[in-house]
């Protein structure tokens, strides 16, 4: 390449560069004027250019260039030790992958802001009050009980919301949204399908800045009872079910058998306001009257039913506090103007909460579980770092001569230091990339585990986005620094004289102090992980084998919602009888009954009991359920006294109830409960008569202690659950049940079919997730510890070959040598366990609230973890010890 072209290329475009060119040109011409050989000068100038380029580009360019050089050099060095590179990259993959997986879950479920315009300016509006406001019959959404009678709830009545939204001036917009409802959607001739629907206010899409991709948002006037029902469908439903074409606009679909016209398609990725919950259809708040008729008849909105959540968007620059005060004040004014309230104490106080992430996706227990997993993967990554550090340290010993030679040839120590860091960086990059891939797969699997027993509409958005990429990148870099620092420092500190003397022994600090410490740290971290895994696993076992009070095997629930297909109360009874007959006729089915609340499904009703002659108080409460004839026989709940619910009890005005033993013992101690009466509201203490007492059973949570339960005679609600006792594995019944239900009336589909064990598993999904994932991580931790310990011992044995040879020549037996290695191993493990005890104690404290019938200082867990580590110490020592014992004294000495 010609010199001038090189100059031009190097100096292209830059004003500074043309200056350099001119300067050099000047030099050339002056030189030529003196009669010097022009060509020779030019050739020399070729060098000038290159060096001038170096000088000119001081700083970033030069640094990058030499860094690239170092990276290439590092890659060449790494290629020489493929086994080591593989070990390092694999460890990093596991460490980074586990962290990426858990982080992407935490991010999707807890951290990520809503996919709407400027989520930071969103505020959730809730209210607090002393007890339930008197005019309220029902509150949907979240109701939290604070200290005393104080409650905090999320929803208000639809009319209240509309008035607030219209009259408020605090927010740019105040939007309303209900919790999702499950509805039957029929499009075209296909059989109806159950999808998730949310009722939203007319300004919902504009207010959130999430305008439909096709079609239009709702209009305020469309949120009125009695108008034609308009819906907006989600992008997902549009693609999956409605063909994904623009012809979807103005198409009519049927929701719960009510026609509705599609006005738009929500933007892709918009799931509603709660992460992990995908809404398929949005309808105006007022459409609820049409879609969810109570008892089959159309009626107006019920003002005592509070079900609309509110989210406001702050005006830019508006002060936070004023907004809260203003909206609360307006609410109070409204309540007073409506004449319902004058005493300020009786008017709920509105409060504003940050709305950046929407409504809480996880309950406290689930969120805790994720943070616990985050902690565990952090521990895992530290172990991986320690392992990799040791691998690289061992390798840097081999490279000591290389470092020394480079130093002797004039390399700067800083350059050597950087060289090593860059090599670590290359390794971290490889591990990070592989970890990202593993993390993605892991996240999907953990997510599946997390979603066990939940329907398709609940799923977290786990695509790899910049946030996850950034996290993984930062984590890998941090890890590279963590494990790259020690070897880099060592390389830069290499003692020239020592290293060149070809004696590698002194190089790593004769006693391998740092590596030993790191291995002990690994053992300590491993102990922590094991204790966590042990506690969570044992807690899960405790939960699984808890006595539920009925036979949970071969039991299933089939659910239908005839109301959604237009069945009135009068027609529902005969319909249910026919379905029940069809189900009972299925092969393998022994008994069928009905129940209002499926046992251990996570939900349930609870109320105060009003006994004659006793005060109406919170102290006497009971779980409530409604059951059909043969329910106790179907579940195999033993009858203790009296009789069970029979067909004659199943009338609307029936007053016969069955209670369980806890109820009988707590409220009628030392008395015969049969024939005693009580009520379930403050005005009536005589409504019910106890006709039977049955055994205790778990109602809605495996964690709850024995609790009183009242069983009323069954009367159908919106959703009817049939409970089915089978002789065969009940999962195989699903298809038969679906056909049996369809055979009675095809317009009423089976909404749900679940086995009792699946329901129980669903309530345990957080615990299963924790138990399973922590168990897997514990195992990986154990393997890492074994590799770390074994690797270091093997290395130590190799270094001490001479010494061992001498010992054997002087009469040491093979057993002595094995004991020596073993002692070494046990010493490191012992030190690690000692360091790990406080860590394990700390993590047990963190887990305390997640444990079921288990003390954090569970002796069995502690013992198991201890012995597992002991076994690892012995096993890891085995191969190096055998090798040491086989050392031939003569050849070992000859090597010296």
């Amino acid at each position, binding site marked *: 390449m010609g010199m001038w072209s090189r100059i031009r290329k190097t100096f292209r475009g830059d004003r500074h560069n043309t200056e350099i060119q001119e*300067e*050099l040109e*000047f*030099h050339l*011409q002056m030189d030529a004027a003196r009669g010097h050989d022009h060509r020779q000068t030019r050739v*020399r100038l070729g*060098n*000038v250019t290159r*060096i001038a380029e170096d*000088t000119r580009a001081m700083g970033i360019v030069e640094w990058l260039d030499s860094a690239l050089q170092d990276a290439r050099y590092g890659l060449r060095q790494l290629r020489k030790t493929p086994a080591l590179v593989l070990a390092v990259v694999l460890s990093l993959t596991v460490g980074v992958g586990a962290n990426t997986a858990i982080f992407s879950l935490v991010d999707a479920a807890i951290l990520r802001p809503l996919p709407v315009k400027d989520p930071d300016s969103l505020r959730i509006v809730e209210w607090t009050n002393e007890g339930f406001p008197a005019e309220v019959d029902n509150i949907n959404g979240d109701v939290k009980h604070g200290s005393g009678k104080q409650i905090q709830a999320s929803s208000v009545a639809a009319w209240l919301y509309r008035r607030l939204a219209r009259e408020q001036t605090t927010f740019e917009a105040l939007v309303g949204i209900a919790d999702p409802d499950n509805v039957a959607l029929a499009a075209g001739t296909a059989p109806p399908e159950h999808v998730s629907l949310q009722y939203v206010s007319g300004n919902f899409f504009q207010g959130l800045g999430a305008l439909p991709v096709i079609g239009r948002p709702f209009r305020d006037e469309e949120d009125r009872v009695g108008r034609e029902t308009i819906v907006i469908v989600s992008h997902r439903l549009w693609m999956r079910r409605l063909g994904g074409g623009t012809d979807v606009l103005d198409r009519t679909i049927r929701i719960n058998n009510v026609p509705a016209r599609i006005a738009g398609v929500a933007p892709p990725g918009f799931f509603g306001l709660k992460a992990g919950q995908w809404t398929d259809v949005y309808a105006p708040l007022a459409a609820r009257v049409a879609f969810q008729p109570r008892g089959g008849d159309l009626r107006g909105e019920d003002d005592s039913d509070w079900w609309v959540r509110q989210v406001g968007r702050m005006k830019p620059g508006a002060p936070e506090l004023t907004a809260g005060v203003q909206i609360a004040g307006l609410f109070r004014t409204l309540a007073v103007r409506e004449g319902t309230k004058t005493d300020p104490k009786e008017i709920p106080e509105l409060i504003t909460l940050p709305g950046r992430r929407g409504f809480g996706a996880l309950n406290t227990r689930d969120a805790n579980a994720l943070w616990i997993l985050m902690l565990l993967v952090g521990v895992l990554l530290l172990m991986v770092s320690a392992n990799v550090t040791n691998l690289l340290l061992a390798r840097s010993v081999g490279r000591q001569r290389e470092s020394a030679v480079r130093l002797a040839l004039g390399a700067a120590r800083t350059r050597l230091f950087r060289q090593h860091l860059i090599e670590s960086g290359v390794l971290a990059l490889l591990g990070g990339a592989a970890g990202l891939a593993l993390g993605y797969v892991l996240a999907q699997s953990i997510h599946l585990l997390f979603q066990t027993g939940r329907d398709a509409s609940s799923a977290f958005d786990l695509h790899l986005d910049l946030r996850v990429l950034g996290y993984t990148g930062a984590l890998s870099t941090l890890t590279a620094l963590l494990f790259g620092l020690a070897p880099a420092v060592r390389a830069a500190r290499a003692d020239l004289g020592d290293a060149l003397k070809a004696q590698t022994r002194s190089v790593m600090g004769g006693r391998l102090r740092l590596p030993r410490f790191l291995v002990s740290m690994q053992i300590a971290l491993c102990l922590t992980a094991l204790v966590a895994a042990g506690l969570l696993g044992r807690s899960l076992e405790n939960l699984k084998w808890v006595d539920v009070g009925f036979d949970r095997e071969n039991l299933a629930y089939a659910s239908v919602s005839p109301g959604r297909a237009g069945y009135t109360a009068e027609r529902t009874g005969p319909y249910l009888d026919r379905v029940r007959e069809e189900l009972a006729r299925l092969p393998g089915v022994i008994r069928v009954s009905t129940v209002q609340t499926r046992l251990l499904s996570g939900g349930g009703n609870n109320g105060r009991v009003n006994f004659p002659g006793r005060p109406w108080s919170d102290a006497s409460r009971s779980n409530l359920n409604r059951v059909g004839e043969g329910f106790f026989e179907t579940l195999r709940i033993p009858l203790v006294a009296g009789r069970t619910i029979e067909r004659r009890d199943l009338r609307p005005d029936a007053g016969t109830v069955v209670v369980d033993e806890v109820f009988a013992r707590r409220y009628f101690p030392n008395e015969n409960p049969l024939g005693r009466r009580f009520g379930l509201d403050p005005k009536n203490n005589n409504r019910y008569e106890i006709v039977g007492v049955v055994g205790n059973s778990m109602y809605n949570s495996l964690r709850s202690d024995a609790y009183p339960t009242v069983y009323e005679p069954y009367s159908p609600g919106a959703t009817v659950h049939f409970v089915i006792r089978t002789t065969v594995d009940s999962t195989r019944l699903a298809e038969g049940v679906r056909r049996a239900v369809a055979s009675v009336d095809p317009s009423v589909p089976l909404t749900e079919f679940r086995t009792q064990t699946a329901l129980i598993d669903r309530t345990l999904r957080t615990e299963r997730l924790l138990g399973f994932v922590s168990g897997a991580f514990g195992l990986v931790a154990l393997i890492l510890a074994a590799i770390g310990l074994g690797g270091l011992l093997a290395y130590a044995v190799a270094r001490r070959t001479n010494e061992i040879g001498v010992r054997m020549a002087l009469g040491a037996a093979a057993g002595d040598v094995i004991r020596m290695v073993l002692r070494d191993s046990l010493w490191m493990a012992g030190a690690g366990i000692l360091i790990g005890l406080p860590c394990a104690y700390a993590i047990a404290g963190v887990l305390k609230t997640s444990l079921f019938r288990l003390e954090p200082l569970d002796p069995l867990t502690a013992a198991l973890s201890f012995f597992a580590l002991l076994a690892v110490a012995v096993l890891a020592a085995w191969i190096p010890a055998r090798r040491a014992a086989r050392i031939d004294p003569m050849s070992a000495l000859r090597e010296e």
Partner: protein
Amino acid sequence: MPKADNLQGSLELLVMKILRRGPNHGFAISSYIQESSDEVLRVEAGSLYPALHRMTEAGLLKAGWRMSEAGRRARFYELTVKGRRQLEAEQKKWRAISAAVAKILRTA
């Protein structure tokens, strides 16, 4: 980061010393070194210009375009205050080292 190189160190010293007498361009500096050392020291352009740029970056010199005595535009270098101070220090160091070396050469 400038490389700590003995030869370059003395080149910088010479450059600063020459520029102490007044601003000048690269060619003049190289000619001056060559001539006043009776052709013993010869500065390659390949060393000189990078050194000049390096010293400018380091704030020891200030550069600017002026007319040369030949009536052409040339890049002139001028010693900064920092450069003056550096020159004093380097000169002192150089004298001490050469005195020490000379002493050893005499006595050994």
